[in-house]
């Protein structure tokens, strides 16, 4: 053994024929393994780009036929083969906006509760329960929405909304309409419930990551819990909180099945949130199998391309904002 180790050239040791070939095969295996994992990573890299390219290709007939008009026309007429994306785009934006108006304050409240209010033994189970809400498949939300929540809205909530908010100057037209149950407001509320767990879990995680010394300094000056959260925790985590909100927004914009059940699939553009509407994802899901002409199918895929672009931008902003705080953590 000693002679082997003292030898200056390890290749020249006595069992010299086996060791170098062993090293060579090890090196080759290492190279193959490296190429395999690098290939898999490249696949991850190209999936998004390939998806965008495929949808652009699938929607080219629509983009060629209608051009920019596709973005600015509210006509959706399968019989006369005229397609415009305004109604689905409007529905997607409005239902997501309603969702965010509900989900952001509620998620902040949940994060506040989980980091400052709840006793320690209660925090993990409650957080797990809220995250369970994220695990429920959207088709289940859709069924519950259609069979339970829509009748509830139609019987209890919407008549009240119509009566009390319908007459308010300025915003009145938003809340006028028959209490169908199905419609933009219902879809927005269901979306809001669906994205609460995503936003609240990001907020809770980043709130917990605030350095204790910062919070303790504020407490030592006599701050209340609320003042610490509002004046220390929130400013420190601002970018990640915005990132979490955008993450939720990305979910809301692309959510398909739940919205399809409760939105009503109507291509009429109306101001009222109580009327049925449509969203990009719901239009595609509802009409894909019915698309009987090339231009119809192409228009649906073009809608998918628009959705992809919008969600990509929103999610990219979300990730960049979330990353900002991670960098800050590393510095402290």
């Amino acid at each position, binding site marked *: 053994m000693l002679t082997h180790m003292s030898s200056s050239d390890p290749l020249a040791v006595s069992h010299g024929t086996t060791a170098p070939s062993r090293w060579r095969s090890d090196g080759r295996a290492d190279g193959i393994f490296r190429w395999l994992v690098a290939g*898999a990573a490249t696949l*991850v*890299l190209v999936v998004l780009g390939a998806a965008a390219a495929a949808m652009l290709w699938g929607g080219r007939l629509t983009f060629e036929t209608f051009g920019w008009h596709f973005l600015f026309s509210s006509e959706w007429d399968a019989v006369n083969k005229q397609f415009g994306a305004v109604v689905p785009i409007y529905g997607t934006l409005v239902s997501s906006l309603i969702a965010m108006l509900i989900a952001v304050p509620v998620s902040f409240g949940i994060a506040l*509760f989980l980091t400052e209010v709840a006793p320690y033994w209660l925090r993990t189970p409650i957080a797990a329960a809220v995250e369970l809400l994220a695990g429920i498949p*959207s088709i289940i939300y859709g069924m519950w929405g259609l069979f339970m929540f829509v009748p509830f809205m139609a019987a209890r909530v919407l008549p009240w909304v119509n009566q009390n908010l319908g007459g308010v100057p300025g915003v009145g037209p938003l809340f006028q309409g028959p209490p169908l149950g199905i419609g933009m407001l219902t879809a927005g509320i269901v979306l809001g419930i669906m994205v*609460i767990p995503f936003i609240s879990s990001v907020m809770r995680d980043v709130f917990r990551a605030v350095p204790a010394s910062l919070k303790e300094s504020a407490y030592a000056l006599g701050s209340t819990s*609320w003042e610490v959260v509002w004046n220390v925790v929130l400013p420190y985590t601002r970018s990640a909180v915005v990132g979490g909100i955008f993450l939720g927004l990305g979910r809301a914009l692309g959510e398909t099945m739940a919205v399809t059940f409760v939105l009503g699939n109507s291509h009429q553009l109306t101001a009222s949130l109580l009327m049925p509407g449509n969203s990009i994802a719901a239009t595609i899901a509802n009409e894909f199998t019915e698309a009987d002409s090339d231009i119809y199918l192409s228009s649906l895929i073009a809608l998918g391309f628009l959705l992809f672009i919008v969600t990509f931008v929103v999610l990219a902003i979300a*990730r960049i904002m979330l990353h900002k705080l991670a960098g800050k953590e590393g510095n402290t």
Partner: protein
Amino acid sequence: MNSPHHSRWLYARRVAANAIAKSLGTVATLFGLFWLIWILWVTLEHGAAALKPGLFTQMTPPPGEDGGLANALFGSVIMSLLAILIGAPIGIAAGTYLAEFARRPAWRETIRFLNDILLSSPSIILGLFVYELLVRPAGHFSGWAGAVALALIVLPVVVRTTDEMLRLVPNAMREAALSLGIPQWKVTVQVLYRAALPGIVTGVLLALARISGETAPLLFTALNNQYWTNNLNAPTASIPVVIFQYAMSPYEAWHSLAWAGAFVVTMLVLVLSLVSRAILLRNRISHD
């Protein structure tokens, strides 16, 4: 200077603001839990009422007739398993590259960034992608296309968990193994994977939970099939798509079957997420 009266008023106001904020936080949490309980309760109540032995032996019926979900269950199981078989190995490999092999930080961070976006992007888009990629060239919907679409949802979940779990493995392990002269691929497979196994398994289970309720990507790829099929080149039924079709229909018997399907899917998702949580928790404790 503040008068004593003023400071007492200020103090009372601050205490009140604190109390109000904490109460609102509690109300918000109850608000969130309220929906969870309502949705789960409704699914369990209606689903349990619709359960029957024929569910697992009979085919999906035409309107007005009695039937079960056997073909849809079979389709779902086959497509989910295939999706895991395709997506998990690629995902584990890509995650390994990110955690162990990628040298240039910019390149590594770009892949992580895009993977995170893929993780959150709408599943309907992946369905349309696979439609353009496989269904349109082939000219027909197929179970294979459904499996590939689901695999694209599995992929980013597994990449992320594998990457994170491998990074949690202490460097001392790598150094100890490499110093024995073991090649890097063997270190990765026999030392690092073993150390990170519970985490990687959790990632795969989470991915399985996620695809078992996915509907949108299957609408454009596997479509649906009223009959049993062993042929993955033919349109294939799945539980979520059958739920969609039946729940949107006007028939009472179909609604009942849709609830039964919803019950099965929800139970599966609940069990999978509890199991994966338990694995993670047990592992974390044993590491501490």
